[in-house]
């Protein structure tokens, strides 16, 4: 007889029992909120989904792609992975990720090493630092966008500095 595969459709009760921490995340201090309802493996790429009713206050670290449909207040770090703010997602946090896709609301600064993509009806109030930024027609954005110019070398503050000869005494004032 045919049997429904229940593993792909978790019951609400089971969802509530599972903590919203990505699997394989090393000691990630994730959920400090009053309730954590859902986590779902979406596909083989280890995408974690934080459901609509989930509220997280604090720091969120992870080593897999993450989709947020709930509310996060604090800080999100997914430096090697993609963060997607779903249409119902509301973020009041600083975000650091490889790539960020915004379909919901973000209030806070976004730093992405690859790309920030604000889709139609997505909203960002904050500053964006990313080499690539795409903002769709109909998206809301208020803040600043800082992109590295194509071909520019990555700024390395600790990199080798050019040799500077000591100025002669009496000549070290600023030139007008």
């Amino acid at each position: 007889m045919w049997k429904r595969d229940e593993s792909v459709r978790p019951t609400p009760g089971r969802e509530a029992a599972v903590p919203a921490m990505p699997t394989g995340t090393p000691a990630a201090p994730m959920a400090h909120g009053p309730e954590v309802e859902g986590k779902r493996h979406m596909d083989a790429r280890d995408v974690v989904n934080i459901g609509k009713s989930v509220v997280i206050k604090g720091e969120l670290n992870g080593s897999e792609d993450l989709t947020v449909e709930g509310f996060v207040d604090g800080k999100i770090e997914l430096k090697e992975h993609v963060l997607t703010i779903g249409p119902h997602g509301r973020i009041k946090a600083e975000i650091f990720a490889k790539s960020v896709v915004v379909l919901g609301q973000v209030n806070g600064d976004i730093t992405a090493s690859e790309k920030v993509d604000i889709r139609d009806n997505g909203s960002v109030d904050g500053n964006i630092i990313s080499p690539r930024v795409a903002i769709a027609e109909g998206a809301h954005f208020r803040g600043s966008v800082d992109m590295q110019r194509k071909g520019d070398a990555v700024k390395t503050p600790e990199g080798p500095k050019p040799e500077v000869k000591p100025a002669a005494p009496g000549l070290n004032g600023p030139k007008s």
Partner: protein
Amino acid sequence: MSGVGKVTGFLSRLAPRRAAEEEAEPVPARVPPEPIVPTKALKKFIASLRQCPSPTLLDLGPVVGSNIQYFGERLGCKVFIEDIFADLDRFQREHQLADLPAFLRTRFPQAPESVDGILCWDLFDFMDKPSARVVADHLMRVLKANGALLGFFATAHPAEATFTKFIVVDDGNLRHRPYSTPRMRQAVMQNRDIIKLFERLRVSDSFLLHTNVREILFRKPGYLSNP
């Protein structure tokens, strides 16, 4: 065989025609025209930005993704988006335009002399005088010495008065994308009114286009920088 072949041939001739008719049935949504309008001042504005090592740009219009890419990726600008048109629209809808100047006094977070270029577009055509005064004072304050400010000013009331998204096609052309708003254009500003409004800037270039729009590029002289 030949009869069946005739029938199928007839049907096959009918079917694509019907499919073509079905495809043609939906009436395409009426999209307002988006004319590409030449601009003369934008090229000079961009040239002034290119002279800065890491230019900072303040855009007072609604966010346009392709403009962000143009100024951010191609020119290496840090772009601040402050959509004053949205504020105008909101205050108009809420019938609170009298409170707009007070709101605008605290609207801009930029530090004095922190911006190399300002894109006003046609903002001042839609502002009343007290609000325009507040915004102009702020813009003069945040603009760096030798920084540039670009504004478009209508010289006649156009037939359609809507907000416009100005999309940079290249440094000599802008695509005009109108979008609806209850806010109407205010009285046409005379040249002397414009110059008086930006009294701490000097007019670098002024172009009167065939579209009855005057493009004015202001520069902030070094000797008039903030104390």
